[in-house]
Structure formats: C-alpha cells, structure tokens
C-alpha cells in the first residue's frame, strides 16, 4: 500500500499544513533574523564557497575530511551540503543557513513518521500533534534558523532512528539505517560518540527480541560492515590531534581535578577522581532532564539561546511529567526501551562537556523528549477532560505564540545582535568606501574577524589560499595552532599596536575598548565611523591615523 493511500486524506491535509507552518517559522526573514553572521556560519559558508570554486578549503586542502577552520576541526557534512546551495543562491547569509532550515523542516515530517512507528499511544491523532509541537518548539526553530551543524546532525539521527524502527518489521531497512547513522558522524562532533553508543545498544535490543537469528542474517553483517567502512576517514583522523582537539577542550578535567583535590586529604586519589567524575557526570546528565532547564531557563549559552524563551513552552511541563510517569510504568515495552536508549545515549555526550547546559550539543534530545511530551499529551487527552484540556491548551498556545514572537522576533535580534557578530556587514561597507586605505582590525578581544570579512566581501578563495601559511596544508590534521592574523585585500587582522600603527597610514578598527578617547587624542587619531548594534552598544570604532 503506498504512503499516500495509507494516510487518510484529512491527516495528509493537516500534515501539509503543519509542515507549511514549520517552513514559515524556519524560513521567514531567514537572512535577517538572527541579525549578524555568526562565526560558525561564516566558516561553513565560506569553506563551501571555497570548495565550490576551487575544490579546496580556505587553507588549500583538497576536500578535507574535517575542516580545520579555527583549529577546532569542524565536521565536514554541513559545508559539503551547502555547496549546491551556494551554487544556486550565491554566497550569502541565507545560503549559509538554508541547510539547517531544511533539516528543521524535515525533522517535522520525520517525527510524524517516527510516531507512526511507535504504538505507544491511544489517540490516532498523536503523530499529528507530535509533528505540530515539534514544528513550534522554540528549541527546534532556533537551531533551524542559524547555520548550526547540530541541526543537520539531529535530522540525520532522526532518519536513522526511523529506519531502525522500520528495520524491526523488515530487516532490509537495517542497511540504510546503519549508513545514515555512520554518515551522521560527519555532521556534528557529538554524533561521533552517539553513533558508536547507539548502534551496539540497538543491536542488543534487536538481539533480545529476535535472539541471535538477527545476527546471522547476511544483511545485518553487511550493514555493520558498511557502517565501519564509512568510518574509515574517522579512523584515519583519529590518530591525529585533529580528532581530539574539540572533545578535549570541552571535557571538564579541571573541575574533576579541583573536586578531587578537595577530597585528597580524606580519600585515595584514584577513588576521589572517580567520585568527582561520577558526581560531575551525574549532575550534568540529570540537568538535561530537569524541568527547570527545559521549560524555564533561557540557557547559560547566550550565543545559543533567545532572551526569556526556554527550549520548550513552559506549560508543556505538565505533559512532560505525565509522559515521564507513563514511560516508567511501561518500561518493559520494547518501544519504550528503545526510547530509553535514545534518551540515555543522546544525553551522555553533552554530559561529558563542561558547559552547564549545552542546548546545541543536547539537540538530539529534542527527539526523545518530544516523544515523551507527546505521550503525556495522549494521556491527558485520554483522561476524559478533553474539552477543558483543549480550552486551556488553546489559551496557553496563544500566550506562548505571543511570547515567542516577542522573544525571537523583537528581543533576540536587538539584544543578541552583538553576540551574533552583528556589525561586520556595515564594516565591509566602510572598507569598500575606502579601497585605498589599509584597515587594521584589532583581534585582542574579538573573535577571529577574517572569516566574517572574507565571507561578506566574497573574497576569492584562491587568493586567500595563497595568503595563508602554506605549511598548514602539509600538516593539516596535526597543526592545531590557529593564528588569527590575516592579510587580504586592504585588510589586516591582528592586535593593534598604537605605538607603531599610529605612524602608518591606516584605519584602526576595534571594539569600544580597543582605543580609548585619551589614546586617540595622544596618538592624533580621528574617529571616522562608529558601528552600533540595534540597542546602541558600540561594536566597532574606526580611527584614521594622521600620517
């Protein structure tokens, strides 16, 4: 029976309506909200542009397995998938974000399909309700509207999960599931560990149901073999510093050492280190399921959150708690066990990082948590107070919609513009106005500026590749040190040295603290422009030297 025949007509109609709502929420003013161009977006977009134009990344490395970027080695899939987008739309803020937006829209369809495969609810409309809640969830919308590779990773995990569910009915689907899961490790760093944890746990779940007959099937062995084959580039890189640089930077070794130090006078060191790690890990793990962090706090990551808008609407805490009780009650059900595996694996990775609540790294949790909430909604609908629940939820939905509009479309573009690297567009305009002047962009407090500038100036990748240190290409995966000093067109990015630079003919650009009015007066500098964010904070000041 075909997919469309299987769907009742009204269900298809509502599904299309929900997907259209999701498209609107994810694509409306995509290039202007969020304001600015975040560093990661610029890196993905420009490397994709460079691959398109030259077949090499910004450092001149042909088709790298990981993109060196700022020495943090980003996963490559987002950039490679952006290549056709940039081919059709050109290099722009919109094209840098489109892959994330499309991933977000696909997520709506995928959660519908996944819920269809999980017979853990009574009401037949639950898949539609689940898709609707996913479409309007602030957490999903936020990461769909900026060039964050984590959303692509979530989309791929959702495809893999859906295929694994289909594989329970027909083992044929195990092969594409393994392929997608393996490929997801190239979409976002977290997925590298997630895939390695998820596959054996799901295989174990299959074995427990189907016994070892499952393992003897040729397709099973073939799938696992292909999974490993696709991981060869990862294995190749794993022996280099490039593989470990990001995870090691994020692990909370310092916190563990500090805690173990406190206990060192009372407990043996190996024991105290173990206890410190277990406590730190447990606290991080439980934080990802805490109602306070999911339904109230705008997260501590100010560059990954909206003002006064939690990840889920606050009133969804009720179905969340109801759903949680329900899944604990039915823990013996194999589909619930599947859900537990997803929750555990998706929470383990962010629990190993030092950020208190990393909403980007924990984005895969959006899938199982959305399912739990949907199960809670099903329980509430089935409780017999349907009319009251419908009335309350309609009112709460309207209030949440207004508050979301306020948070994302009014407050966020204004209050987080500076954090989202707003101002570079205007700076590029200033640079274009003075093509004969040398611009020195101070790097002492700013994130690396070069990538924003080359992106917005559409600087030819071939020229940039010639201007970087050529030895980087030769030691691409071993040379992890990043130097933010660049020289291209009429721009230099480095720390300003007033004692030297004020004697050359240049325009010195920095943030509000780079050059004080007293220093400007002493060095006879003339302020020629000031770039502010929408709420009046100074982002850049440009001073012309008198020479």
């Amino acid at each position, binding site marked *: 029976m075909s997919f469309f025949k299987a769907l009742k007509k009204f269900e298809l109609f509502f599904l299309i309506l929900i997907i259209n709502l999701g498209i609107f929420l994810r694509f409306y003013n995509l290039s202007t909200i969020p304001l600015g161009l975040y560093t990661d977006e610029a890196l993905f977009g420009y490397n994709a542009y460079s691959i398109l134009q030259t077949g090499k990344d910004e450092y001149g490395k042909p088709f790298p397995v990981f993109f060196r970027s700022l020495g943090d080695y980003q996963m490559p899939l987002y950039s490679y998938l952006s290549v056709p987008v940039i081919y059709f739309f050109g290099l722009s803020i919109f094209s840098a974000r489109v892959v994330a937006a499309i991933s977000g829209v696909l997520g709506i369809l995928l959660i519908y399909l996944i819920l269809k495969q999980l017979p853990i609810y009574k009401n037949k409309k639950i898949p539609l309700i689940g898709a609707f809640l996913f479409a309007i969830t602030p957490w999903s919308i936020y990461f769909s509207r900026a060039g964050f590779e984590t959303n692509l990773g979530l989309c791929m995990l959702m495809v893999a999960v859906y295929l694994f569910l289909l594989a329970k009915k027909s083992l044929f689907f195990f092969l594409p599931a393994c392929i997608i899961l393996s490929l997801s490790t190239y979409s976002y760093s977290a997925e590298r560990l997630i895939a390695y944890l998820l596959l054996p746990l799901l295989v174990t779940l299959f074995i427990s149901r189907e016994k070892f007959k499952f393992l003897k099937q040729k397709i099973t062995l073939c799938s696992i073999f292909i999974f490993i084959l696709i991981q060869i580039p990862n294995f190749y890189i794993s022996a280099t510093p490039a593989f470990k640089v990001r995870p090691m930077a994020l692990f909370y070794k310092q916190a563990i050492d500090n805690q173990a130090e406190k206990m060192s006078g009372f407990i043996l060191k190996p024991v105290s280190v173990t206890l410190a790690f277990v406590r730190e890990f447990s606290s991080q793990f439980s934080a990802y399921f805490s109602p306070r962090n999911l339904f*109230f706090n705008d997260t501590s990551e100010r560059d990954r959150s909206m003002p006064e808008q939690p990840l889920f609407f606050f009133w969804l805490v009720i179905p969340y708690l109801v759903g949680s009780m329900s899944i604990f009650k039915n823990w013996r059900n194999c589909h619930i066990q599947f859900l537990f595996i997803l929750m555990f694996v998706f929470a383990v990775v962010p629990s190993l990082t030092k950020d208190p609540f990393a909403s980007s790294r924990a984005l895969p949790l959006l899938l199982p948590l959305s399912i739990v909430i949907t199960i809670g909604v099903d329980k509430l609908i089935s409780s017999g107070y349907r009319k009251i629940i419908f009335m309350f939820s309609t009112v709460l939905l309207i209030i949440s919609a207004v508050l979301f509009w306020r948070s994302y479309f009014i407050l966020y573009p204004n209050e987080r513009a500076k954090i989202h690297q707003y101002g570079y567009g205007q700076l590029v305009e200033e640079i274009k106005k003075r093509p004969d002047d040398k611009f020195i962009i101070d790097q002492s407090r700013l994130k690396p500026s070069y990538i924003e500038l080359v992106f917005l100036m559409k600087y030819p990748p071939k020229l940039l590749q010639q201007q970087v240190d050529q030895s980087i290409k030769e030691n691409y995966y071993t040379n992890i040190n990043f130097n933010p000093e660049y020289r291209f067109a009429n721009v230099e990015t480095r720390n300003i040295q007033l004692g030297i630079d004020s004697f050359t003919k240049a325009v010195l650009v920095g943030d509000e603290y780079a050059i004080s009015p007293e220093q400007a007066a002493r060095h006879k500098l003339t302020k020629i422009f000031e770039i502010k964010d929408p709420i009046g904070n100074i982002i850049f000041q440009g001073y012309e030297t008198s020479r």
Partner: protein
Amino acid sequence: MLNWALLIFVLFGNLWFWYVFNIDRYTGLILSLASFFFWLVINHPKKRYFIFLVISFFLLIVQQWEATEKSLLNFRDNDDIRIQTQRMREYPPLNFSFNGKTYWIPAAYWLEQKYDWTLALKRLEDNLFQNLDINQYFFAGHPLERWGYKEFEKFPFILLPFFLIGLFNLSCQKLINRNLLLFLIPLFIFTYTGNKNVYGPISFYPLFMVSIYQGVILLLKSVKNFRPRIKYLILLLLFFIGSLIFIQSIIYEFF
C-alpha cells in the same frame, strides 16, 4: 525493626536535616515530625495519622513561609527598569488597516509595561521551576547554581535513583496518590512568594524522605530472592559506595 532502622537512616542520614536543625532546632523538630507522620500515613494509613500529618505539615509550611524573603512579582529594581525602557524602544511600530482606517497596536505597552504581566509570569515560572529542579536537591544546584541563593548539599546523589523509583512507585498507588497532592499546596504558595530562605524548600522534605525510603525498600525486596552471597555483596557494595558519596557530600559542603 529493619523498617524503623531504615526510616531513621533516611530521616536523619542526610545533610539537609542537620543543616536545618543547626539553624533552628524547632524547625528541625517540625521537619522530622512532618516527615514521620507522612511516612506513617503512607505505610499505615489511618485517619488520626492523617490529622497529625496535616497539622505538622501546616506548621512546616508556616516555618518556610516565615523564613522566606517575599517580594512582589512585578517589583522592578533599577536594572529591571533599564531593561524595560530599552525593550519599549525595541518594538517596531505595528498597525493594521481596516475600512480605510489605521489602527495602531501598542504591543510594547501591552507586553512590557501594562500590569508588568510578562515580568510577573517570568518570576512565577522561575519560582515554580526552582522547586522542580532535581539538581537542587541532589547536587546543590550544580551545574546551574542559582544566582543570589546559598546552595547547599541536601541529599547525596546516590539516593537519586531511589527517590525516582520510590516516587514513581508511590504515584502509581491510587490511595497514596491523593496524599501526594498535599505537596501541591506548598508548590503553589512558594511559586507565588519565591524560594529565598535559609532552609531551602523544606516543605518538600517529607516527600523526598518517604520516596527515598520507598526506593530503598523496593531494592531490598528485589534482592530478597537472590542467593545470600550475591545479596550481601550487592548490599555491601551499595553501602560502601554510598558511604564514600556521603563523605564526598560532607567534604563539598564543609571544606
């Protein structure tokens, strides 16, 4: 005998009780009584125990109420006023036309100024979710400690699984379920007033205590049919690990 020993261990074997007792012995006494009567009502449901529970629970809520720093939900300090003024300017002019007439929508006024409802809603949510944050009870608020609050160790985190299992078990039993609704009273009260007090959310202490007790009982029941050697090994291991974690909590709190 074992039940009583376990009750005493759970009731008094955590830092939270002694923290409260140290500050005010009277409050510590009410805390232990309320917890004891709640345990009695759950395990030996009788009307007179329920009456004692209600009285002691009421006194407990009063103690927490007295100790809580209350502030108006829509009170604005200087920084709040600054943010409000800034946000009033962030809204674009909104209007729509109907029948040739233009109608202006004062969204900024409705959302940022009138009745301060957005600020009040945010504070209500903050107060509510602080009480629902599991990390506050088992990890002293770590990793997202609250600004302006003195976080302190309450229960050692090894008791978290026992709490969850015990709470789940209690909520599945319909008779007991109704008793759990008692805790909605302090939840609503302190959502309104806030949670800034020296004792922490002591109104919920009986719930935690009894849930942990239930969780431990369930564990003991589940290992009952194991072979003696394995049974004692599991219990010994749990005791050893639990002791280490308890020592860890003490060290974090006092050193």
